Each structure stands twice: as structure tokens, then as C-alpha cells.
């Protein structure tokens, strides 16, 4: 009887052990996926399955712009049989090139979102598909929202070495070089990545959020001290701020005397202020 109980407990322990191990593995998998969704802590684009890993979207601060691929102007056919030559180089704005196709399931969300939003305000948007020989203009006409510039150009896919669709390339019109490229699951995701990467590429402004700023308490304290000193007649360059040249000590008011008595001495001419 006792042996049977011990055996059953052993089996239960083994089963529990397997369950715990399985839960831990699942938890690790969830963490890994979350890390991937968070872009692994980098600001570059991420790729969907089957699409080559892209370069990071923004060069490191100070990186030579010449290290980025040279961009190309776009020429091809429109959806209505029109001929299009669009300038990407030597223009004062960035151009966002979104490479899509009619048959790719991952592109469907891009087509839908293009109807309601633009990835980068101030930039020009061009949707690039393969040429009519390799694409279905009729299907693209169904997919393309009104007001979206679609250029059918296999040459552009070749020029920019696009590994698959969906794929986004941002071209700096002034430098004529690619600013960033990559893929994603939706236009929203890429828009956010472009925004973050664009901000990363800029030198931080003095008042930029996240920059080193003086704590509010310090600022208030300094204002209070300045106010007291100015009320006592002590401004920048006042000799009381520099101490006695011989002793290198700062004169202090005697106990019971206020600062304005110290400040009553005339300033020393020719002495430079430290601030």
C-alpha cells in the first residue's frame, strides 16, 4: 500500500515537473517574441519572415553619409497606362518609396492603410510595384486608394535591390542617398520606426526630452539665491564673491550681520567676474 502511494506521488511529481518545464518554455518564447516586437532594442526596421534583414534605418551619429547606397530616380508606368518619371535625387524633400505587390498577403494592410494615412509628413510618397509584364494593373487599380501615386517599375526594384514586398526605402533628396530601408507588418509600424529612427539620426536638442536637464528644485534654489544676493547689492563681479587675494578666503558676514553689510564695500576694479 505504502509503495503504491509513493509510486503515485512520484508519477504526480514527474507530471508536475513536465508541466512546469513546459510553462517555463512557453514563457521564454513569449519573452523572445516580445523582444522581437520591440525591435530588439534597436531603432532599425525589422523584417517579416522571408525578407532579408535590412540595414538599420538611421546611420550612427557622425556616420559618413557616403556609406549609404546611392538612390535612383523612378521611371515607369502608371496604373492607367501613363508614363511617369519622378525625381528622387536633387530635390529638397525626402521620398518614401513603398514597394508593394498585388499578390502579397502582407501587403494588403499597407494598401488599406495608404488610403487613410501617410507615413512621413513633409515627404513625398511613391508606391512602387513591378512593371505591367510582372504585375496585374487591374488588380492594382482595385487595391490602390485614390490619390496615391503608384509607379509600376521593375527597374526600380532592381536599382534599389528590393528583396521582397512589402519593403520601404526612405531617400534623402538632398544627399541623393538612401536614408533607411526595411520591412514591417504594417504602415503604422514602419511610420513609427521611421519617426524614431529619424529622431535618432538628429543630434539631441538642448531641450529634447530625455536630455540632461537641470532639476526643477535646483533651478528654483538658484533663483532664490540670486534674488537674495541682488537684493543685497551683490551682482556678478562683486569682490565679496572672490575672497581676499591674500588668504583666498571668502569673506563671510559676522554672526548677526546680514549680507548687505558685506556688500557695502566698493567693487575692486579690473577684477574679472567668474560668471
Amino acid at each position: 500500500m505504502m509503495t503504491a502511494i509513493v509510486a503515485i506521488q512520484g508519477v504526480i511529481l514527474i507530471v508536475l515537473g513536465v508541466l512546469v518545464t513546459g510553462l517555463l518554455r512557453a514563457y521564454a518564447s513569449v519573452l523572445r517574441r516580445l523582444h522581437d516586437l520591440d525591435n530588439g532594442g534597436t531603432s532599425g526596421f525589422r523584417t517579416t519572415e522571408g525578407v532579408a534583414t535590412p540595414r538599420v534605418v538611421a546611420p550612427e551619429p557622425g556616420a559618413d553619409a557616403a556609406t549609404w547606397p546611392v538612390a535612383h530616380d523612378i521611371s515607369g508606368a502608371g496604373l492607367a497606362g501613363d508614363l511617369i518619371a519622378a525625381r528622387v535625387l536633387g530635390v529638397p524633400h525626402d521620398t518614401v518609396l513603398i514597394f508593394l505587390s498585388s499578390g502579397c498577403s502582407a501587403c494588403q494592410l499597407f494598401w488599406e492603410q495608404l488610403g487613410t494615412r501617410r507615413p512621413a509628413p513633409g515627404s513625398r510618397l511613391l508606391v512602387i510595384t513591378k512593371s505591367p509584364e510582372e504585375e496585374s494593373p487591374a488588380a492594382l487599380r482595385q487595391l490602390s486608394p485614390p490619390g496615391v501615386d503608384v509607379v509600376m517599375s521593375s527597374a526600380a526594384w532592381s536599382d534599389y535591390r528590393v528583396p521582397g514586398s512589402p519593403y520601404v526605402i526612405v531617400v534623402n533628396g538632398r544627399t541623393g542617398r538612401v536614408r533607411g530601408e526595411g520591412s514591417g507588418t504594417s504602415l503604422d509600424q514602419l511610420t513609427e520606426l521611421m519617426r524614431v529612427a529619424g529622431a535618432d539620426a538628429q543630434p539631441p536638442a538642448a531641450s529634447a526630452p530625455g536630455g540632461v536637464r537641470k532639476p526643477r528644485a535646483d533651478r528654483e534654489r538658484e533663483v532664490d539665491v540670486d534674488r537674495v544676493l541682488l537684493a543685497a547689492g551683490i551682482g556678478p563681479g562683486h569682490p565679496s564673491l572672490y575672497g581676499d587675494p591674500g588668504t583666498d578666503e571668502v569673506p563671510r558676514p559676522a554672526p548677526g550681520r546680514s549680507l548687505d553689510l558685506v556688500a557695502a564695500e566698493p567693487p575692486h576694479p579690473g577684477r574679472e567676474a567668474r560668471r
Partner: protein
Amino acid sequence: MSETTIAGYGFTIRLPDGWEGRIFRRPTPTDAFTPANRNSPDPDVGADGWLGERPRAVVHLADFALPPQRGDYGSGAVEIMGRLNCFVSLVEFGSECRGTALYGTVGLPRVRPEQFGPNALARRLPGQTGVQLFFTESSRPLCLYVVIGSDREVASSSTRVNQILDRVTVAA
């Protein structure tokens, strides 16, 4: 930067640096754009033009980014062009116009600064000036319509417009 050439509908243009172009022909309208349906919430109703209209080739050339939606005479584009920008449109008309006095000029004309004026604009916008010239080239009745972003830049801009017109060929 390399020179880009676009060709279609009998037009060939070698685009200089900084210029882009479109050659297109609107689809033949299949419904009438009438006072009854012009207020339709459906944006496709009457969007192609007037019933019975026979669209012909249109060429748009500009030294700024052309928007996807444009009128034949540049509406949609001239509103966003800068002071130093130029917009050129070549609009083809039907063969019934061939031989008429309006299209009596033979050959693609060049523009002169004194020809420009705000009254020639399809849509008057502050500072802009333009010119509209009718002619026949390779037996095709055409209209050349040019808009310049600033009337103070007519001399230099008309030179640049003529430089790109030198690069346009029209086949019969």
C-alpha cells in the same frame, strides 16, 4: 544624376536634372457629369470628364514633385509649386482642330518673357504668371500651357522652360 527619358503617346522627352514628367491620357468617361449627380458623395461619379468626351494625350513637366491628382492645366500642381518652379503642360486636341486658325502656328513654340501674364492662368494664384499657346506639331493640334511660380522670375524661368521644350519631340 542621369538623364531620364520618357516616351509615350507619340511624345518623347529627355528630362534634364531636376525635372520630372508624366505622359497620360484619361480614360474615356462612361457616365455623364450632370448637375444632378455632381453633388454625389461617390467620388467616382463624373470623375473622368463629360460623357462623349474623347480624351487625348497630355504631357506634364515640372521641376517640382507632381502630385498624383492633377488637372490637364495643372490644377492640383500649381497650388503647391514654389516661387522658382515651373510647370509645363502639353494638351492634345482632336483632329477636327487641325487646320483651324487657332492652331495655325506650326511647330512647338518657345516662350518669351513678354508673353506671360496672370490673365493667361487657368486659375489665378498670387504671384504666378503664365502663357497659353496653340499650335500644330506633326499634324497634331496641341496647346502649350506654362505656369511660372513668380512673375519676378519670368526671364530666368522662361529660359529654363525653353530648355526643356528643346528636349520634346512629337511624333505624328
